[in-house]
């Protein structure tokens, strides 16, 4: 566990991961608990009166099924936000945060290269997000069984995978910005700003006809365009790991060369 930077970083994330897992599971189960009463309210008839763009924007077109309900209630903003915030928080902490706390110094004077430190920390962040994704998947399946939501095992896995990719992408950007700047606050601000911009781009794309050509650029859109509890993985989803790799790849030479902060 403590032999590698990867293992050490993952070990340091354990308490937070337990808390976030509980949060994700409770979020899903609260929604599952509401589901039977929503179903009896004949919500589709109510929603029929809503303007079409609004329904599309908040992904509420299909509230009559368990899948549609979860897509609209959880996956349109709450779960993507949870995964993005988790990813950014870990990402900003793992390199820039540890550097500012003086914890990187004694690691940086070992023969381990800075590249290896950065890559292993990014890998630990990805594993953390993936664990949260698995928890989400299991929570959806249990909630679905308990509340009779009839959500498929594979579609639920796809949706969990997609929001995990989204969280990992922003986490990687946060690690990259933190590694390049050495400042946790900059990593949080820049990546948080990008996340809000990504959501707005998605939202505006849903609401306004004219902006649709650009919405594919939004990672939020890439993640939830097909549900995300849906029949297939959107091809655009491949952009999320690609952007993550590029971000870390750009940060590597900067991190190798720059001054490290003292304790």
């Amino acid at each position, binding site marked *: 566990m*403590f*032999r*590698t*930077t990867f293992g*050490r970083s993952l*070990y*340091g994330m354990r308490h937070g991961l337990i808390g976030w897992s509980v949060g994700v599971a409770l979020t899903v189960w609260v929604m599952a608990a509401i589901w039977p009463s929503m179903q009896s309210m004949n919500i589709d008839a109510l929603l029929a009166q809503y303007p079409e763009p609004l329904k599309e924007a908040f992904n509420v077109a299909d509230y009559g099924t368990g899948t549609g309900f979860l897509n609209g209630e959880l996956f349109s903003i709450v779960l993507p936000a949870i995964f993005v915030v988790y990813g950014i928080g870990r990402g900003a902490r793992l390199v820039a945060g540890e550097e500012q*706390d*003086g*914890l990187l*110094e*004694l*690691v*940086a*004077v*070992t*023969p*381990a*290269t800075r590249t290896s430190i950065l890559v292993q920390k990014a890998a630990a962040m990805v594993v953390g997000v993936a664990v949260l994704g698995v928890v989400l998947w299991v929570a959806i399946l249990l909630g679905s069984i308990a509340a009779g939501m009839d959500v498929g095992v594979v579609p639920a896995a796809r949706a969990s995978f997609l929001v995990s990719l989204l969280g990992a992408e922003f986490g990687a950007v946060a690690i990259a910005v933190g590694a390049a700047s050495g400042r946790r606050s900059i990593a949080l601000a820049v990546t948080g700003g990008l996340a809000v911009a990504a959501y707005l781009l998605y939202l505006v794309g849903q609401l306004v006809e004219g902006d649709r050509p650009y919405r594919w650029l939004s990672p939020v859109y890439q993640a939830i365009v097909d549900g995300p509890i849906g029949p297939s993985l959107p091809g655009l989803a491949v952009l999320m790991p690609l952007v993550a790799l590029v971000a870390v790849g750009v940060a590597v030479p900067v991190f190798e*060369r*720059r*001054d*490290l902060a*003292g*304790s």
Partner: protein
Amino acid sequence: MGTTAPAADRTAPPPEDGPVVDTRGLTKRFGDTVALDRLDLQVPRGCIFGYLGPNGAGKSTTIRLLLGLLRPTSGTAHVLGHDVVRERRRVHRLVGYLPGDVSIDPDLTARQYLDHLASLRGGVDPAVRDDLVERFDLDVNRRIGTLSHGNRQKVAIVQACMHEPELLVLDEPTQGLDPLVQRTFLDLLRATRDRGGTVFLSSHVLSEVEDVADVVAVVRDGRLVATTSVADLVERTRRRLVLTTHSPADLVALRATDGVRSAEPSDGGVEVVVEGSMAALFRLAAPWGIERVVADEVDLAGVFLHLYEGD
């Protein structure tokens, strides 16, 4: 030059007589601030090298440059024959580092933390590490977050020494160590030197260095002021002491004594500033019946200013 020199082999150890640390015009600027100004420093092998200077003189900047944590603005630095920028990994393999302000993972036990750093170094001799742990009486099973400052410093000492580095770099190391631990620590430095290693010891307190160092370099305002033996530095150091005597002191005779720079009456005694040896002073004062001597810690800034002006 009629002979062709063989191509320099980077992997070869530096010549035994070459300096362990060798900087040429080493300069570091942070924005408009010059933290280190064209430093030419040579540290000979197998000695304890004191690196003295007041706070903010550029000591930590020098150390962080030598360790590759900072990049030089200009100039070069070699540690054990390896360029600290281009051959940073080689330097890291051969050097142990004890930072002044120790920040250690509070989440791990000392054992876990030492294991972690050891494996990043590709493993260390467990016998050496266990010996250090024992010598400093360190409880490795406690979480570092629950350790006192002094115990945390012990963890830092062990990690710096456990791979038996050829060069040990210490930045203001004895702050916060209790006297007993300090003695163990200084013994360790001497043992490092005696097995052929080199110790680079920075400090702003002369007394911390004078007991243990062989050679001393003095920095001030980012520039090297002097490199000298400890004996010479002590010889040139001014100390202020207050002398209380049974019968009244003869101020005129005092002022005429070897080494005495000034003598003024003070509460119930005489305040004397002495440079170098105090032998003549005490020979003169002994007949007056010395009741008490209170000496100040040496004001290093003053010593350095004095040296600075002297050059």
